[in-house]
Structure formats: C-alpha cells, structure tokens
C-alpha cells in the first residue's frame, strides 16, 4: 500500500475525502433540491443525484470547501444545460413578441382585481405562495426560466450565468428581459386560471 507523506495511506486519504464530501453534500441537499425543483418539472431528485455523483468524482478540484454550495449548484446547472441541449426542445424566440410590452403593473391598475384594496400589488403578489410561483416558472420555456431563477432567485451575477449556461452575456441579458415579461404575463394568466383573484378579493 502506498504511504503518503504524513503517514496517511492512499486508502485512508480516500476515506477522508469521501467523508468530507458526504458531510458537505448532505448540508447542501435542501438548496440543491430547491434549485432543481425550480428548473425542472419532473426529475428534480434525479438531477440532484447526478449532481452529487459528478461532484464526488471531481471533488478534489474544489479548492475552497466554503464554496461547496455554489460549486455544487453550478454542476447542477451544467447538467441541466446539457440535458436541455440534448432535448433541444426549448427554442429561442426571435423577433418582437407581444409579451415584450406586457406590463403587469398596468394590467393590475386597469383591471383592478381587488376593488377595495389600497395595496393592490402587495395583495396580488401575496396570493402567490411557493407552489404558485413554481407553477408560473414552469410555464416559461427553459431558456427563459433558467436565467430568471439563477439571477433573481438564486442571486448569481449575469456573467456567471453566461459561463454556466455557456452562452454570450448579451444572450443572457436578452433572455432575462424576455423572461421577466413572460413571468409577469404568466403570473397574470395563472392568477386568472387558478382563481387566485377571486380568493384574494374575498379575503
């Protein structure tokens, strides 16, 4: 058996590495699962498992163990991106979409869904819980959903997102723009479809 400087055998070193990874990984499970659930409709658990497997294999490349969370998340996003490419289902929408000029704010003041409310927006946003937000996210094509989740919900910088998704920064910015508009218009559509407005008004 090869003995390393410091008297630790290869095997013991592997055990220690494994243990260190296991500890880090278990602590990150809730955050990884939550990110996966925002990105994919089905298969969030599989995506997390794949992330763990790939993370474990390349664990020795992680220099700063304090950065384990973002590191594992970026592995998860890479896997998501690769899967998206394989399926090539989510296609870029070119040209001016009418959704680009949708304004949830103006829709709210015009439609006035809570007629006796002084806090129209708070009331509207307040009808959306974790479940409802996820449902709205899932209505967005993945290429728009991913930058929205990563930037506005997970707090990644647009440059980082461009690197993770392997697209130019300009593309990320353009997709983010459309993603916001899509999100606003899908929020309105979802609120109508799910009867949230009636429930909110009755409160």
């Amino acid at each position: 058996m090869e003995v390393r400087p410091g008297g630790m055998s290869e095997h013991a070193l592997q055990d220690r590495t494994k243990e260190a990874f296991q500890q880090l990984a278990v602590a990150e499970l809730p955050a990884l699962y939550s990110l996966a659930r925002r990105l994919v409709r089905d298969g969030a658990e599989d995506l997390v498992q794949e992330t763990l497997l790939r993370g474990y294999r390349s664990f020795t490349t992680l220099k700063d163990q304090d950065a384990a969370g973002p590191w594992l998340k970026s592995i998860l996003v890479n896997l998501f991106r690769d899967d998206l490419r394989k399926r090539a289902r989510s296609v870029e929408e070119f040209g001016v979409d009418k959704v680009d000029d949708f304004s949830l704010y103006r829709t709210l003041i015009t439609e006035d869904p809570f007629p006796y409310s002084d806090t129209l927006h708070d009331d509207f946003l307040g009808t959306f819980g974790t479940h409802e937000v996820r449902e709205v996210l899932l209505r967005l094509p993945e290429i728009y959903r991913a930058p929205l989740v990563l930037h506005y919900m997970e707090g990644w910088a647009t440059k980082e997102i461009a690197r993770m998704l392997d697209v130019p920064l300009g593309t990320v910015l353009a997709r983010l723009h459309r993603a916001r508009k899509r999100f606003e218009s899908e929020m309105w559509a979802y609120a109508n479809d799910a009867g949230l407005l009636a429930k909110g008004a009755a409160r």
Partner: protein
Amino acid sequence: MTGNIIPCFEAVRQLWEYLDNAISPEDQQKVEKHLAFCRTCCGELEFAKELRSFLASGSAEEIPAHVKDRLERFVEGL
C-alpha cells in the same frame, strides 16, 4: 433638451436594467428624466422593485422528508 425625452414604453423596457445599474449613464439619465414627470412609470418602478424582492425572498421549496432520506442514503452509498 427634447432629444432626451423618451416615451413610456422605452422607459419601462429599461426599468429593471436601471435598477440593476446595468444601463449606460446616458440611458440612466433618460430614464430618470422620464420618471421625473411620469407618475405611471414611477408606479412601474415601484412595482418592479417589489417584484424583484418578491422573487429574491421567495421561500425555497422544502425538501420532503422521504426525498431527503433517499438522497442521504445515496450520499452514504457513494
């Protein structure tokens, strides 16, 4: 200078980038000029701020206990 006056749709289109400090100083100035006289767009700006913090503070979906157990077993088995 009338050249610096932009219509609502142009101001609205740039509001989030404006909040992100992601537009050029000239565009920033144009947006600010517009906001100085347009109440509706000020409302848009406030709403954009609310929506941003709503997204940022959105509670993460909790991991169900049985899924957590399964994933922990998966990690142990690595």
